[in-house]
């Protein structure tokens, strides 16, 4: 036992010495970082002619929006995941938002919920001082995040409303509402299949398997700023980004016809085109310096 104690002491001492070294290396760069705020706003319409966006009540026949096909609609639910955020600058600056998952938390995964104003902004911390003119992010949660297993925070399936149990994984983007043109029958977080005007689009799927129909519908979005956002002493910029809700239904890959298209989308293969639309519906608006 004495021998063990001696070795344990030596081992503990060595471990302590090691840990000490690590700490010394890490301390200084962390202190230099600043905060970069990212703010999302859901809007309706193109940048030069946009209207404010708000959610409608389930059952409401007050259709505030009209799509490109002249069909009236409203939106009752809108949530999406943003992850793997990267900032880049003209002088080679690069910041990758750290990511980690535990049973009680999730760092670097942001759930933007139209029904929760506090979710529309998040802070990137410890961003190195410098100039940044580009942001990119993943719309969704990739395989790494899924394969971490049980997760908390923004990924908590008990509170997020964004987890598929049958084809397990996180849904990248959900949008639900009602359209005067819809024949109903869709079901989702806010829409029941008895709702005769429901429209439900759940865009998920996180893995590609060669030779199969498995779809990874997570999309990488890159947005360039028209000015440099500076991080440094006393400089904490905000990038104001927008999602044009109407462009989700009318984008580069597909135009959704609420009367004739599938308006109850759940399978990854059914949501593939709209996922590309959704990614293309994000845009840069301005920087608050």
């Amino acid at each position: 036992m004495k021998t063990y104690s001696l070795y344990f002491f030596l081992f503990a001492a060595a471990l302590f010495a090691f840990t000490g070294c690590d700490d010394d290396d890490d301390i200084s760069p962390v202190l230099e970082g600043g905060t970069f705020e990212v703010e999302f706003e859901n809007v309706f319409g193109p940048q030069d002619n946009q209207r404010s966006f708000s959610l409608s009540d389930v059952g409401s026949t007050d259709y505030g929006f009209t799509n490109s096909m002249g069909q009236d609609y409203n939106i009752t639910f809108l949530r999406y995941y943003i992850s793997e955020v990267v900032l880049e600058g003209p002088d080679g600056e690069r910041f990758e938002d750290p990511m980690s998952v535990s049973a009680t938390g999730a760092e670097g995964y942001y759930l933007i919920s139209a029904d929760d104003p506090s979710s529309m902004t998040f802070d990137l911390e410890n961003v190195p001082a410098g100039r940044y003119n580009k942001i990119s992010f993943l719309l969704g949660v990739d395989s790494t995040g899924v394969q971490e297993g049980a997760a908390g925070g923004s990924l908590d399936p008990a509170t997020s409303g964004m987890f598929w149990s049958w084809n397990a994984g996180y849904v990248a983007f959900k949008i639900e509402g009602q359209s005067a043109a819809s024949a109903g029958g869709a079901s989702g977080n806010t829409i029941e299949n008895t709702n005769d005007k429901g429209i439900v689009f759940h865009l998920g799927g996180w893995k590609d398997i060669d030779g199969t129909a498995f779809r990874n519908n997570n999309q990488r979005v890159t947005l360039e700023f028209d000015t440099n956002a500076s991080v440094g002493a006393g400089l904490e910029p905000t990038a104001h980004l927008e999602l044009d809700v109407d462009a989700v239904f009318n984008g580069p890959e597909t135009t959704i016809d609420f009367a004739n298209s599938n308006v109850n989308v759940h399978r990854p293969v059914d949501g593939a085109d709209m996922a590309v639309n959704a990614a293309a519906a994000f845009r840069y608006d301005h920087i608050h310096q």
Partner: protein
Amino acid sequence: MRPLVFALCFMLFAGCQPGETQSDTSFTFVQPEHFPPATYDFERNPVTEAGFKLGKRLFEDVRLSSDNSVSCSTCHQQAVAFSDPQHRLSLGVEERVGTRNAPGLFNLAFTSEFMLDGGITHLDFVPINAITSEVEMDETLENVVAKLRANAGYREAFQDAFGEDTITSGLMLQALSQYQNMLVSDRSKYDDVVTGRNDAAFSAAELRGEAFFKNNCASCHAGVLFTDQSYRNNGLAGDGAQDAGRSLISEVGTDIGKFRVPSLRNVSRTAPYMHDGRFETLDEVLLHYRDGVVSSSTLDPGLEGGIAMTSDEMADVIAFLETLTDWEFVQDPRF
């Protein structure tokens, strides 16, 4: 030098799991030497005695269902290797009839895709499916967490297991995984024979059955886990029309009627058989493979025309399959 290395390793190990004592050994996951490496990430969620016991309590708790009537153990019973012997199609809340027979649960730590259609790729997420399915527990995770938070006993048990003064769905799922990961079935007569334990030896009939099995069954029921973990259509009549199986997940027609090849460990305990429990005995199962295989575009090519076997060969195969019964597992007092 050896003892020194050993001592240091031991210290290192002990250091990684602070607060554990020697008596916890029986609540630690042990990798069987003759098994493939575990696929579960135990560094993220190591098994502890408190976590295991909390997981068992959750597994047996009807609070997980909407009307507090159904627990995991309702359809996964230890005496039959955590399968459901009572109903061809397992029943959920309000006696709602499910679409499949609940399979046995064991050796999950070595499995990377779960459910008969492989729709779940992490053990932690498996209970979410059962809890939220309308024909199983028909409850929300949010409500389950609320029920657990309202219970002082659970608050204490979570504190003991995870050292955090909170109950979240993530911690609940990790506790359930700790319990399920410990359900290792590696103590059957077959295991004794292949590892040379207990001077075990196959009888003449078991040996003949093993030889037949290796030639005719082991290409799918492969290796020491008795499954190659692939998805195959084994030619059940009417299949695909009622349960599309793997194609529900993969969304391709070539997967219609395919299901995960089940492990055959404990198979003599896990009747009824097939995804929908259509066969009550192993005799019926073998008769299906001999006479009942229905051809279709997705039928496994190896089963075209069935598997020819005599009555004696069938009896031998069943004798061999019975050596896969792990009596210590189904009676283990920890579970």
